């Protein structure tokens, strides 16, 4: 709505202030340091009393130019950087990059590596959704769920630590498979986790889902129709809450997803509660996938034989995967050298955030926080 040079010169701020003075609106800056923005998101919110008239997200506070950094790193090296984009599903980011490089090299991945990758992806998805659940309840003013969610997440982190060597930024994927074989304890600990999870997931419903205050805060709030979800480019649970079928694992299966039986969760209401339920039910689907795979990890190599120096042929390669937040696309342009010529990440958070203004208009300030919670924004993923 403002021209670029106006924003640069600070004229836009002045203009907005003058407009607000005329209409009596209140402009508040939520962020970059604010308890509810989970990082450094900056929202310029125009308020009429408590009612939201406009939400303008300002980005760039955590831009680390990851895409540009990747251009100077080799195909083995650049994968670790992508852990720092969507740090909650770091594993799935790495997976997407590894898949893209493999597509360029036309590598055949051993079945064992594929199964390990999928197992790790789903564990990451559960961990991510658990953190989201806790953080979202905290946005709504309930602090206790946060700690309860972290208890289960901690178990997953321990499993990750044992096999991958790190808790958050694992860097376990390499082009051609995974970096190391699974730890001997892996299967046992995952099974223990499944038992724990099934016992504790009921508490989530008791504490938050069934709560009447919570339901009233979520139902009918932040409505996003299926058409709008598509036009804003929303993916993942955000779009599936509006009834848009967009699960990459189902539509464009990668690895062993086409051999697994799991459902794509769809809710049609399109409100905050629908998005909440999609994520909660998705965790159960991930559990289903893990149960199918955990006893059937095939024998074989965990990594395909690759050359010491990877060189992608000249051309353009694009892969996409389903992260915990939606569709992550990796686009590599290769000139045939050791490093990519250009890398572009299509991050789910950016598109999901763009729908926030549309959703928030006309609702109350408290709802904005709830909506941001259900969008599951990870700011480094938006800015990269």
């Amino acid at each position, binding site marked *: 709505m403002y021209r670029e040079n106006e924003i640069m010169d600070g004229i836009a701020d002045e203009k907005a202030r003058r407009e607000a003075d005329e209409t009596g609106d209140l402009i508040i800056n939520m962020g970059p340091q604010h308890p509810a923005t989970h990082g450094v998101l900056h929202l310029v919110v125009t308020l009429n009393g408590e009612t939201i008239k406009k939400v303008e997200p300002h980005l760039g506070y955590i831009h680390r130019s990851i895409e540009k950094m990747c251009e100077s*790193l080799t195909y*083995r*090296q*650049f994968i*670790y*950087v992508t852990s720092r984009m969507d740090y909650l599903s770091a594993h799935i980011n790495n997976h997407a990059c590894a898949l893209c490089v493999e597509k360029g090299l036309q590598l055949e991945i051993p079945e064992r590596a594929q199964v390990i990758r999928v197992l790790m992806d789903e564990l990451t998805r559960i961990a991510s959704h658990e953190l989201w659940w806790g953080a979202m309840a905290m946005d709504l003013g309930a602090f*206790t769920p946060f700690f309860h969610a972290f*208890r289960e997440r*901690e178990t997953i982190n321990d499993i990750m*630590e*044992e*096999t*991958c*060597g*790190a808790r958050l*930024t694992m*860097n376990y994927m*390499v082009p051609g498979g995974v*970096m*190391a074989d699974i*730890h001997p304890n892996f299967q046992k600990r995952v099974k223990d986790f499944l038992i724990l999870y099934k016992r504790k997931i009921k*508490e989530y419903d*008791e*504490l*938050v889902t*069934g*709560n*009447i*205050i919570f*339901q009233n805060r979520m139902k009918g709030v932040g409505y996003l129709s299926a058409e709008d979800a598509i036009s804003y480019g929303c993916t993942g649970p955000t779009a599936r809450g509006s009834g848009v079928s967009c699960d990459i694992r189902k539509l464009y299966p990668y690895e062993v997803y086409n051999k697994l039986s799991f459902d794509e969760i769809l809710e049609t209401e399109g409100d905050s509660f629908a998005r909440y339920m999609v994520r909660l039910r998705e965790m159960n689907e991930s559990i289903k996938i893990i149960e199918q795979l955990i006893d059937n990890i095939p024998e074989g190599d965990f990594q395909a034989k690759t050359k010491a120096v990877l060189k992608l042929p000249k051309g353009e390669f694009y892969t996409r995967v389903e992260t915990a937040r939606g569709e992550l696309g990796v686009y590599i342009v290769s000139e045939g050298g050791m490093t990519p010529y250009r890398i572009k990440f299509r991050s789910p958070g950016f598109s999901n955030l763009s729908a926030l203004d549309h959703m928030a208009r006309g609702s109350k300030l408290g709802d904005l926080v709830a909506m941001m919670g259900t969008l599951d924004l990870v700011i480094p993923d938006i800015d990269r």
Partner: protein
Amino acid sequence: MFIINYLKEVFGAVKSLATGLRRTMYYFTHHKEIITQQYPDNRETLNFPERFKGEVVMPHDENNEHRCTGCTACELACPNGSLKVITQFNVTAEGKKKKAIDKLVYHLELCTMCNLCIVACPSDAIKMAQTFEHSVYDRSELTKILNKPGSKIMEGVE
């Protein structure tokens, strides 16, 4: 009919609140569920999995010998330039010049523990240590030299 529905609604609402209260009361009274780890106190009992990536180290045996040939594979594999191999030429007894490392400089402050150098090393000269308390008062203390002074390459490692 309206009254019955209304009362049902109110009753359901109160019940939903009560289930939440029961859950928190359970945790309030059951202290064995507490998961807090009192970190600096439990330092002795902390054990990390052997794959935990804490810091790159170079193992030396009792004769102060390491396995590094100075091939710079780790330096090439490192995405951040955390490792720097400085080589020198030793003159052996037969009068031949032999390449060996003078120093393997490791910048812990740049390292992201991505494990790529360990994977790249052909002679298993470096590995990840399970240390994690890396805080120091001066940044220069984080620049480490991995080979011990006076160490030399193990027999038979090429």
